[in-house]
Every structure is written in structure tokens, then in C-alpha cells.
């Protein structure tokens, strides 16, 4: 007998005492927990996101849409970055004012090459206010997972309020499980040495989040397409 059959057989015998229950799964679990915690206006939700991101030691900036290129240029210059890795689908205008040498996110690029790059700039799929989290789904404007991992400095642009949700349940609704997802809450951290928190063991030691105002343009959330695909 294969181990598969062995294990499945053992499971069936182990649960033989439990009476059959045909409740469909949608009704099997009491979901009376909250979809979000508290009532907030969109502006308050964005403020909460900023607060919680900062609380977990991300550096938060806010700017209007037309100020984004200057803001990014300023951040890269302040950091002294010479090179920045850029996902294929990133809006070209975003880095139009930066002098920094751009490195494309190529499948053939090696991890060692990435290790030599100073910074990375990406968009995101959704941001979660209650937990101070940004989620990347490897869409063209976010790139492969490794580009936000190997360089030591990550700048992530979040369009607010369109890309911001309140809670974890709302974020999952917007995401497509078929895509590789990375949820990021603050920079990499460890508390393994006497519980002293140290930022940046393996991931970027500096995470900067730019909240860019998209309200004026009425941009829909970029992940709308994923919702459609899920349904």
C-alpha cells in the first residue's frame, strides 16, 4: 500500500467516531468576528496606516501625485544610492527626476547581482491599515519577490486611499492566491538575542513607504482585476 493510501486510511479510521456532518463549509464556521475594527473615514484609515507603519519602524512619507517623482528622487539622493532596481511595469514617470542608475528586474539576473544594488522602488497590491502592512503580489509594477528582499533599502509606493483597506479580511478579499504574495510589516527584524529588537537581519534594513495621494485622479485600486479573476 502506498503511504498516501495508508495515511488517508488512518485518517478515515481515526475520525470514524465523528458523526457525519454535511453542513456546507460556508455555514460550518461562525464568522461573527468583525470585518474591520472600528469605523473610520478613508482619510482616517490612511492615517492609521501611516501610524502603524511608523510604529513598526518603517519611514513614512506623504505626497501629492505630481510630487512623487521629486519625492522619490529626494529619497534616493538622501540615501546616497547609486543604483536602483526597478520592476518592469513601474510607471516610468515615477523615477523621471532621479539621477540614479537603473537596474532592470530580469529573470536572468543573479542574486549576487542584486546584492550589489543599493535600493529598490516598487508599487504595491494593497496596504492594511490596522496592521501597518503592505502586500506585494509580484505584478509588473512590483517585480519578482527577490528584488524587495536582497537590496538593503526598499521604497514602496502606496496609492492612497485607493490601495488601502482597513483590515486583514478586506486585504485577503482583494488578493489573488494564485500569485506569489509577500506581506511586509516594517523592515526585517529579529528579537532573538535577549529579546532586543534589531532591524534587518536578512531583508532590507530600511523600509520607506510613500503614501501618494490618488484621490484627485480617482484611480481605482490596481488589484481590481484580481478580484475579478478570483470570482
Amino acid at each position: 500500500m502506498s503511504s498516501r493510501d495508508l495515511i488517508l486510511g488512518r485518517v478515515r479510521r481515526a475520525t470514524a467516531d465523528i458523526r457525519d456532518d454535511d453542513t456546507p463549509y460556508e455555514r460550518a464556521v461562525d464568522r461573527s468576528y468583525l470585518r474591520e475594527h472600528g469605523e473610520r473615514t478613508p482619510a482616517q484609515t490612511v492615517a492609521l496606516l501611516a501610524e502603524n507603519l511608523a510604529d513598526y519602524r518603517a519611514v513614512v512619507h506623504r505626497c501629492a501625485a505630481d510630487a512623487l517623482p521629486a519625492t522619490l528622487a529626494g529619497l534616493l539622493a538622501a540615501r546616497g544610492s547609486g543604483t536602483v532596481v526597478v520592476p518592469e511595469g513601474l510607471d516610468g514617470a515615477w523615477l523621471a527626476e532621479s539621477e540614479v542608475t537603473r537596474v532592470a528586474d530580469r529573470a536572468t539576473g543573479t542574486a549576487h547581482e542584486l546584492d550589489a544594488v543599493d535600493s529598490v522602488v516598487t508599487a504595491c497590491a494593497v496596504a492594511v491599515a490596522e496592521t501597518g502592512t503592505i502586500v506585494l503580489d509580484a505584478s509588473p509594477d512590483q517585480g519578482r519577490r527577490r528584488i524587495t528582499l536582497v537590496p538593503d533599502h526598499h521604497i514602496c509606493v502606496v496609492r492612497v486611499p485607493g490601495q488601502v483597506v482597513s483590515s486583514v479580511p478586506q486585504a485577503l478579499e482583494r488578493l489573488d492566491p494564485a500569485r506569489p504574495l509577500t506581506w511586509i510589516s516594517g523592515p526585517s527584524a529579529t528579537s532573538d538575542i535577549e529579546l532586543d529588537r534589531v532591524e534587518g537581519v536578512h531583508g532590507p534594513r530600511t523600509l520607506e513607504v510613500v503614501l501618494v495621494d490618488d484621490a484627485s485622479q480617482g484611480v481605482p485600486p490596481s488589484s481590481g482585476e484580481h478580484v475579478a479573476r478570483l470570482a
Partner: protein
Amino acid sequence: MSGTFVGMPAFPVAAQEAVHDSTLRGNLRHATHTIRAKREKAVAEVSDWAALREAGKQIKDHTLRHLDRYLVQLEEAVTAAGGVVHWAADADEANRIVTALVRMTGETEVVKVKSMATQEIGLNEALEAAGIHAYETDLAELIVQLGKDRPSHILVPAIHRNRGEIRDIFAREMGEWGRPAPEGLTDTPAELAEAARLHLREKFLRAKVGISGANFMVAETGTLVVVESEGNGRMCLTLPETLISVVGIEKIVPSWRDLEVFLQTLPRSSTAERMNPYTSMWTGTKDGRAGEDDGPGTFHLVLLDNGRTDTLADEVGRQALRCIRCSACLNVCPVYERAGGHAYGSVYPGPIGAILSPQLRGTGSEIDASLPYASSLCGACYEVCPVAIDIPEVLVHLRERIAEGGPATRDGNRVLLKPAKGHAAERAAMRAARWAFSHPGALRGGQRLASRTRRFHPRTLPGPGRAWSATRDLPEVPAESFRDWWQRTRGGKDVTK
């Protein structure tokens, strides 16, 4: 290999040694109290905690009830997304599968994310025996591995080590394994972390094979989830060409939506954070996903039984399979706080270890038979558990079975256990009872709490601190009596630091 620490003495003996180790006790006390206080705050932030806890319990119970169906659904989803699913009935089989998979790649080095399942099966040792070096990449696991040591806590495995010791281990051992520690390394946590970063980065960037566990597997979509802080998980999950994940069959949740419960309860229970720094979710391989070239091209999922179906067969004990390994129960446990993780002689320490290890491995060994006695039955573990596992209930149940014998399932077969006459467990219980009776204050505390547990049986002797207190070396035991501790912490006046 069963994952039993070979030659491990029974809990009372191991604990006796531990309570004499003042470094260990000091560190543990600091750690558990700090995390405990933070956790209360993090939990208080979500007003629907009770509802989330109940939902978590129901999701897991439902999954366990229909585990066969969900395992098959998961297998289909993972396969459809380009992954390969393997089934391992026990530790040996899992180790053989993983060893063969690594051999197929032609590599002799793998990077590993901290994983309790691979520790449980002794995978690193099995790989080593096959000439394959497995590098642990979690900072704490690195400290443990370089120190040729064992983890003592689920969440902070090297909590028994001070910064000075860590510095010495790094300075002495890193060169043996790869990039040596920088000259003049001091013991500041930032410098130590930097040394680990450089040492491990060299390995990450060249690694062709990564090995992980998973916190959750979604049956509906075939998605695996790894929750972590440092980024070593992301490194192992995305940089290598081949990814092998070894996961206990109980780690399934039926639907994508179920993650909304556990992604809220796990970080808050575990590290007392709103959310852990990194969570990775992936489904199959890059080739299984259209229009994308991200991450490993080969993905193997090894589904591990190793005693889980036997645990599932026990109608009281099966609830232990709901565990999401948050470690909250360790941090509130007065016995764990004094005895430390090593005394439990298994990869699962603390209250959850006391009920999970003897079920996964059976109660044939001294250590396993004594574990259900490693508790004061105070009930704090049940109260904090985010999936509401009634640990005291299972402890009492297992004690009954050890003391009186009874039906159990081993390797899928129903067996009738004989009462453990003169068994170490019983001796430990007797010793603990003597201690408790000579310290009426402690006994009062213990009885009051013990009476809260359902199915309490008079033959299972109540009493706090039982096994660890078997030393009866009282001046060494708490500066504060158990009863005082209890009153202080339960009175909500827990001043830590």
C-alpha cells in the same frame, strides 16, 4: 529516527537540572514575562478576539473531521499549480524522501527555514548522514546550530543563551561553516545580527535548494503560507531553484478566506505584534503560474503523518492538532518558566509539548510518560490559546491513560495500553505530591485551579510544579511562591521587566 532526544532523562530529572541553572531561569523569566505583557496589549487591540478564537477552533475542528477530503483537495491544487506532493507515514520515510529529492538536484548543501516538523523528524541529522549540509538560517536556529545545542523555545529557540555566549559561539564556530565572524566582534545585538547577516547571505545567494515547513496550507487553492520576521524565510522560499516543504498533515485550512482568522490571531499570540514583519504565500511553481517568472521552478510538498493520525484517533487528545504553534502557552506556563524548554525532551516544549509529544510518539519512553505530569493544571495555557485547546483536559486524560491504561492508537492500530505500574511518571507524580502536601499554600493554589478542569480524576494527583519540583530543593525554586505568582499575575498586576 523518532525525534526523541536520545538518552533524554524523564522530565523530573531534566527539570531538576534546569532549575539549578540560574542563567536559564533568568532568561526564561525575562522572556516569558516580557512577551506575555506585550501579548495582552496586542490582543486587547482587537475587540473580537473571542469570536476569532472560536472561529479558529471551529475551522481547525472542521478540517480535522474531514481531513481526508482536504488532504486530497490540497494534493490536487498543489499538483495543478506545478508542485509535486509526497506522503510520508513516519519520520524515516520523510527523511528518505527529502534526502532523495536533494540528491536528485546533485547538491550537497541546502538552506533551511526554521521548521518544527523538520526538527521533529531529525531531518538535519538524516541529511548530514547522507553527506548533505543543512544550514539553519533563522538567527536563533543558527545560534543553536553553531552552539551544537538544542532549541528551548518554539519562538525564541536560543533564549537560553546570553549575548556574551552568542558572541563566543559566533567567534569560535562561524569560520568552520563559512564566512567567519568579523574581527573584534562585540556582544551588542546589532553587531551579532550583522555578523549573522553576512555569514548567511553568502549561503543564501549560492543556495540551489531550500527546505521549509509551513504555517498553513490552503486546500482550496494549494497555497502555502510561511510567517516569519527576519527574511530568512523569504530567502529560502524564493532564491533557490528547488523548494522542499515538509508539513504536518494537520496544517491545512479549507479555504483562502480562513487565513483572515489566523493571520489575525497568530502574530498577536506569538510575537505580540499586530503583524509579523514578513508573510510569504506561494502556490506551486513559477512554471505553474502563467506569465510570470518568480521563485523556484521545482516545488515538492512532503505531507507528514508521524503520529498525527494516531493523535487524531483520540477523541480527547485530537484537539492538540489544532495547534498553530504560536507559543503563547509556553509564556504563561509556570512550570515551563522554571524548567525551561530542554527539560521536555522534545521539539515541542511547554504545555503544548506536554500533550503533543506523548501523543505523537506514544508513551513508551520515560520522558514521554512523564510529560503529562509536567504541569500544574493551572489553566493559563487554555486561556491564552488562540484555538482554544483545552490543554489541562488533555493532560488529565493522558495521565489517566498512563496511570490506568486503556485504548490508544499506535501506527494506525488500536492497542490496549497497560497501566504504568511503578512507572517513572507515577514516581514523578508521587514525588510532586509529597512536595505539594508539605507546602499547603502551593497545593491550595493547585487544587483550586485543577478543579476547573473537566473530567478531573482524583487519581491524577493535583499540585503545582509537580515534576520540576521533584527536586524539593526549595530555596532554589521560586523566590516567589507559586501562589504569590499566581495571585500577582491573575490580579492583572503583572509588572514585568
